[in-house]
């Protein structure tokens, strides 16, 4: 498809055919690619200012000493790798992100199937209701969950006690605290998977299921041999996207536990905040947050490679 305006004309010897500057400008502006770039320019500028510049600035910061007066190369990264607490944060972030993404994907898949099997007239209200956790601002919903888990006036504990059970130390025991922050993340993120999987399910041709039914396939076989293969790319993309967002999560952990007790719920973002903002060591905070980058880049390479391969197979 041509994206330029053709300006061909026969050139006669001795006749100057060079268009004027004004004509050149008009032709340049008439090109579809030029218009596309111009229309995207505000977005490009916003991304450059709010994403690209801060990203490079944080790389620069991470290579400075504590007082930002001396370039120390990878010194901050080497220092972090020698700290027990940081290694614990790496482990915790991996546990937090992988567990949360797994359960979000699982719950999203199950609920998408349930909603997809409802009569068409009833689907809309269920879709709307299921999306509620995802559309509430995360800081607000985290605060709501914190009140439910509140160490002194926990609503959950009130209910448990009214049925004769013991209180649960939701946020004061490190392992319960880990469970609680993962639970809230799953609650918040599962609707995203639901909506993506529901869209994917709707795009699977009915003829495939009809053919499988004629061949005598049961529901499980249809799911394994038709639904899952048809959804693999969507599953991969959603998992990748969610992995990135969950690895970088800040709000839930900061509001509910602030990394405690005993640093045992810190993730990269909250630990970076503690080092960079609370303790005033911005270079070390920047280095901590940049540790996510290689981990996520490797995950992205593998997942996207799989998506491309399957795309070629289908194509």
């Amino acid at each position: 498809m041509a994206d330029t305006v053709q300006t061909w004309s026969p050139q006669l010897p001795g006749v100057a055919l060079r268009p004027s500057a004004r004509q050149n400008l008009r032709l340049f502006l008439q090109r579809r690619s030029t218009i596309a770039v111009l229309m995207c320019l505000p977005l490009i500028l916003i991304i450059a200012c709010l994403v690209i510049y801060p990203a490079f600035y944080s790389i620069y910061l991470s290579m400075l000493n504590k007082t930002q007066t001396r370039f120390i190369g990878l010194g901050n990264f080497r220092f972090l790798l020698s700290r027990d607490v940081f290694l614990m944060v790496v482990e915790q972030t991996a546990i937090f992100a992988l567990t949360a993404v797994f359960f979000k994907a699982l719950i999203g898949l199950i609920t998408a199937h349930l909603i997809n099997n409802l009569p068409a007239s009833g689907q809309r209200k269920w879709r709307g209701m299921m999306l509620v956790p995802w559309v509430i601002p995360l800081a607000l919903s985290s605060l709501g969950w914190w009140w439910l888990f509140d160490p002194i006036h926990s609503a959950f504990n009130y209910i448990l006690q009214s049925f004769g059970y013991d209180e649960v130390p939701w946020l004061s025991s490190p392992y319960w605290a880990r469970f609680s922050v993962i639970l809230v993340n799953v609650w918040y993120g599962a609707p995203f998977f639901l909506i993506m999987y529901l869209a994917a399910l709707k795009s699977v041709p009915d003829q495939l299921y009809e053919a499988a039914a004629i061949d005598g396939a049961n529901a499980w076989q249809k799911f394994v041999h038709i639904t899952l293969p048809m959804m693999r790319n969507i599953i991969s993309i959603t998992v990748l996207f969610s992995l990135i967002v969950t690895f970088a999560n800040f709000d839930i952990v900061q509001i509910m536990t602030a990394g405690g007790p005993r640093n045992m719920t810190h993730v990269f973002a909250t630990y970076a905040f503690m080092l960079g903002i609370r303790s005033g060591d911005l270079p070390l905070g920047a280095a901590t947050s940049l540790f996510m980058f290689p981990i996520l880049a490797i995950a992205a390479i593998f997942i996207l490679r799989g998506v491309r391969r399957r795309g070629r197979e289908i194509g």
Partner: protein
Amino acid sequence: MTQSSPLSQSRPTRRNLLKSAALGSAAAFAAPYVKDSYAAGSLSLGVWDHWVPGANNTLTKLCNEWGAKNNCEVKIDYITSQGEKDKLTAAAEAQAGTGHDIMSHRDWNIRIHQTVLEPLDDVVGGLIKQYGPISPVAEYLAKIKGTWSGVPTTVGSQVKPCQSRLDLYQQYAGLDLRDMFPADVSKYDKAKIDTWSWDTYLDAAQKLHKAGFPVGLPMGQSSDAVDWVGALFNSFGVVMVDAKDNIKINSDEARTALEYLKKLMAVNPPEVYAWDDAGNNRWIISGKGSGIMNPPSSWAVAIRDNKPVGEQLWHHPMPRGPKGRFVGQLPQFYGLWSFSKNKSAAKDLLTYISQKDAVAQLVAASSGYDLPSFTSMYDITTWQTVAPPAGVVYSYPPRGDEQTSITGAPARSEVGAQIYNQAINTVMVSKFTQGNEKLDDVIKWAENELEGTLRA
């Protein structure tokens, strides 16, 4: 004949201009501080948003008074410390090199931003001349390499002594706290006060726990927890890192303090490990608790929300340990950015709001919560008159033999900031008391973490 007008007489010439510029520059460098705020026009302040309802209004009033006298427009933004928004704002302004003229800084932020803060020796020096010795904690935090980079505020500055229930202590622990610490320092009886030690405190805490009203001492990683544990460590003689970067945590004093804390934490509610800075407030206000360590904000809210509890609260000094009686102090400071366009006016305003008359109004507006850094101002009448019960906050300012301290000292303030903000002391205690880790392992962990704080 034409008469020359005054304008023509002062017609600028190159020579005059150079002369004026040279004189101006010389004056600016030679004069340490010149009150010339008439030339200023406007000043902007980013100030900590007070917990106590209405307390901001008094500061606004004082600033507007000064502004009216000096023909200077003053604009104040009150910035909450919830979610560390004030620290984020300060960090952003320091990095950007633009923002408010004056910014209030909590705890360690003066040290953190020292390179972009204007020296304020003239202002603080003048105040010390007027009001005598300043708090050593304020000096530790804001006087860096011999230069004052911040002016201690009254607003938001605090200590965290005991706040206890008179009725419960009397009934279950047999201690009359009002008799021990009456609302008049001249009536303090040394013999009685000397009995108020950490051993007595533990004994009382055990009895109160048994009676179903435990004391509530936070053991999370927020400042209330860090401050009271720091005060206890000081009273046991625990030094984490000394002023010469020597790690000293592997000591008999540290082991003794941790063993003591094992017993004390056993009689606290188990949820203290998850409390933020509001946790202990909620505990005492709920009526379930018999004592906390906090400024009077919890008392003020109790009077509003649960008056019978509020009427039984009493502030009094911390228990004494083998090395003395210490209370955690957390001053705030006004810093003047070096990129401020209006430094002279800013210094004049800071001096104005630090005068005793202004301080007295600020203390009154906060019902005694705000604590100036000059002990000579502890005679402000608010602390005697606030009620109920009458005299509840009299012993909130350190009186008698109580000394102020901050976790992290006496290490270099760069190191101290890391120790404080990473809550190394409370994590140590939590590992030992909640995690049941071996004492040697906890000490070893702390040594490793403290070594990390020494990074250049």
